[in-house]
Structure formats: C-alpha cells, structure tokens
C-alpha cells in the first residue's frame, strides 16, 4: 500500500483518504457518523491547501481527470459537505430531519 494515491505534492493529505468518497450518500454517511474531532481535523488539514488543490484540479478537462486527481477532487467534495458542521453548527449535522431519509437523485446531467 505504498503506492501513491494523491497527486505529487499532496501526499500529506493521504491520511485523510477515508474522506475521498465518490457519492453524495457516502459523504453524507461519513459526515453523520464521524465525531467532530475527526471532522475538524480533516477540515483543518484541507482548508489551508484548497487554493493549491483547486488550482491543480482546474488544469484537467472535466472528462479527462486522472485517478489520483479524482481522489483529490472527492476530498474537496467532502470538504464542501462537512464545512457547515465546522463553520456553522459545531456538531456533525444540524438539528432537524435525518439526511439519511433523503433520496438524492441527479435527475439529469450533472456532476460526478
């Protein structure tokens, strides 16, 4: 498992690969089932690197993203998902309807 998972220059984020999840539902479950300490650690590791990450990702056309860059991209989607937990709520999910009851469908094209 010494094979590099993230692009050159982003190896320091490899401890957070558990957040590199392909679907919205996986990211929702991850957010909902992680303690704030883990969510915050991920947030603090990724936020300072975001300028660099997004600049790096912007070089790829949407349809030709290499696997390592795709993993890095999924980290940013998880950041989008958990940012409100850290910046607004101070807890993994806000009080209210359980997000796992929601069925999320991309009705037509869309994202990945």
């Amino acid at each position, binding site marked *: 498992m010494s094979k590099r998972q993230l692009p050159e220059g982003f190896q320091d984020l490899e401890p957070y690969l558990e957040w590199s999840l392909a679907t919205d539902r996986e990211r929702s479950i991850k957010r909902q089932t992680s303690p704030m300490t883990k969510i915050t650690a991920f947030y603090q590791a990724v936020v300072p690197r*975001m300028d660099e990450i997004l600049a790096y990702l912007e070089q790829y056309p*949407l349809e030709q993203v290499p696997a390592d860059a795709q993993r890095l991209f999924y980290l940013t989607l998880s950041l*989008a998902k958990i940012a409100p937990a850290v910046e607004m709520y101070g807890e993994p999910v806000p*009080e*209210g309807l359980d997000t796992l009851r929601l069925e*999320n469908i991309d009705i037509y094209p869309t994202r990945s």
Partner: protein
Amino acid sequence: MTLQTNGATGGKWHARYPELGTGPVPIEPYISLEYFEKEREHIFRKVWLNVGRVEQIPEPGDYFVKDLAVCRTSVIIVRGHDGQVHAFHNMCSHRGNPVVWNAKGTCKMFTCRYHSWTYGLDGTLRHIPDEKNFYGIKKDAHGLTPVAVDTWEGFIFINVDPRPKETLREYLGAAGESFEGYPFAEMATGCSTWEVDVNANWKVCKDAFQEVYHIFSLHNKSTGAAFASTSNPYLNVHELALFGPHARISVPANLDWKPTPVEALARRYGMLALQKQGSSSQGMPSGVNPTASPDWSFSGLIYFPNMCLFVADGGIIMHTMWPLSENRTHWEARTYFPKAKTLAHRFSQEYSRATFVDGVLVEDGGTFEKTQSMLASGAKKQVILGDEELLIRHHHKVTEQFFNA
C-alpha cells in the same frame, strides 16, 4: 406611517390586500381527511401541476413517469417523434395495468409488461398479440388516454382534468409572465433533487417556503445572519404580491455579512444557488427583484397549489409538495444549476448543494413532522399569522375560492 393597534408596526401588506383580513387561520385544513379529499377533487384534479423539465426528455422516445397519488393516477410524460411533449395516463387499455413500470427511460414503443399490448409514442394502440382472440376490437379507439400537457419556460405541466378550464398560460397569468425571460434553460443544465416522504400535511411544508420570517430564528446557526441584518433583524421582505391564485416574494440579503472561509472559496469559483451577496438582477424580468433593491438575494414564484420556485443570480431552487394523505407528503426539493466548467466549479456547486441540504432539507424539513403532530393534538383550533405571513393566508383564501367555484 401610522401604527396599527396592539403596537403592531407592520400591516403594510394587509393594507395592500385588506380582503384577506387579519384574523387567525383554522387548523382544520391541516389535519382533516375530508378537507384533503376536497383539495384533491377541487384543486389537484383541476389545475396545471408541474411535473418536471424538458431537459429530462431531450430526445424523441425519452420519457419519465410521474406517480400522482393526489390525482389518483400515474402519468407518462414522453417526447414524441414530432418533437413535442405528450402525456398519457399510464394505464393499458386492455385490463388496466400500468404500461410503464420504470421511472424513466427511452423507447420506440411502450409495451405493456402484462400481455405485451403495444403503444406508439403518440399513444396510439399499435399491436395486440393474438388480436383475433378479441371481438372486433377497433385499435384506433383504444389508445392511451391523453393528459393535457404544456410547457412554460422549460417546465412541464400536466392537468388531469379532461377539459381544463384554462390554458397553462392563462392559469400562470401575470405572475408567470413576470418571470418569463429568466435564463431558466441556462441555469437548469443540471438538476439534483432530494425527495422524502414526511408525516405532515403538504401545506405545513409549503408554508415554510411562503414566508422568510423564520429565517432569523430557525436558521440562526446557518444562513440566518446572511439574510437578516441589524437594520432588518426579522428579514421583512422587499415584496409580497398576489396574482390570482399565485404570489410573488422577494427577499433581501445582508450586505454586511462575512462569508465563512469555505463559502468564500466556493464563491470564488462559481455563484451559489442562493447567493446572499453580490447578486445582480440586471437584465432579469420584472418579477425578479421587482423592487430593484441593491440588497437583493432571491425572488420566488409561489405557484398554486404546490410549487415554490425561487430564482437567484446563481441558480434555481424549487420545492414541490405532493400530498399523499391529509398527514403525509412527498416532498421534492430541487436545485437547478448551470453546467460546471471546471472541477473547481463543481466543488463550488457541491458546497451550494451541501448548504441547501443543511439549511433547507434538514432545518426547514425538521419542523414539518413536529408541527404536524402538534396541529393534530387538538390542543388549539387555530394558528396566528403576521403581516409577513400574508401568503399563507392567501393560500387558504384561494383554496376556499376553489371549493366554492
């Protein structure tokens, strides 16, 4: 400005629409099965209902099925070989089986799973296996039963009334007209929906999106401060306007609000669906920021009976409430968004969706079942509405008009 009695400082919307009164509203409409059945017969089986967008069926043969329990039917919406959108009751002429079982797809013909009776995209009955077994059947008299269908700004509406009293355009009236020209097609290149069945009356859900008075309170940890400001702490709106059965709402932004670090990042790479600052309504139709306010965030078409369509500079948010019974609702919350140009833009849109889920699905949605259970308690017979909650009052009034029509 003269003050109302009881120290009330508002009353400006009431002054504009005095016929709606100021009294409390009965709870009965939210809990009564009998009332729900009247809504079904007098409203949902009579009016134009939005079931989707044209982008869902771009090519001839593309179709989707909409189960409309409240109309007691299931409808196939298909793009025909003529390029037009058609709608049919999803019911085989043979013995009533739904012709299409899947939610969407592409086909050249509809073939009933039960006995393989086959229909064209135009609904005509094309083939009956072992046709000689039937008694002088005239195929051209047994096509799929059509449902009235029309489009407005790319939104597909159906009407299960066999003879609709008005065209879609007549029904939309001046309210719809005032949103025509918003870049719907460009803004709706993609669509994500979140759907959930909630144990609440459909109007409990709709009411949450007919007023923004709750934003400073319910959303105090999330978006509250982005909208409400020190000069407008309870987020009094720029405009409430009524147009026949429909209404319009236009909502301010707090220009002094400072985005969080990740929100700032997301905004750098794209507009958020509900951008709270830096929104421009330049070039937009008259219903979008109708007061031309510099501190504008978004405007909404509150379409009777069951759709709230919110448009902003950066995207579209739409809620549709499909009643299942007097205390159950299938709620569809959708965000439409333009095509992402880069991965960074996709990140930006994902942040927009994440805050939509937290702020709207979770926080607003979290009130529905709680409210319903107390409305059903019988402890109180009525609820109280303020001036900023005019549209809820209006909905009840319009319903009465439909019942008495």
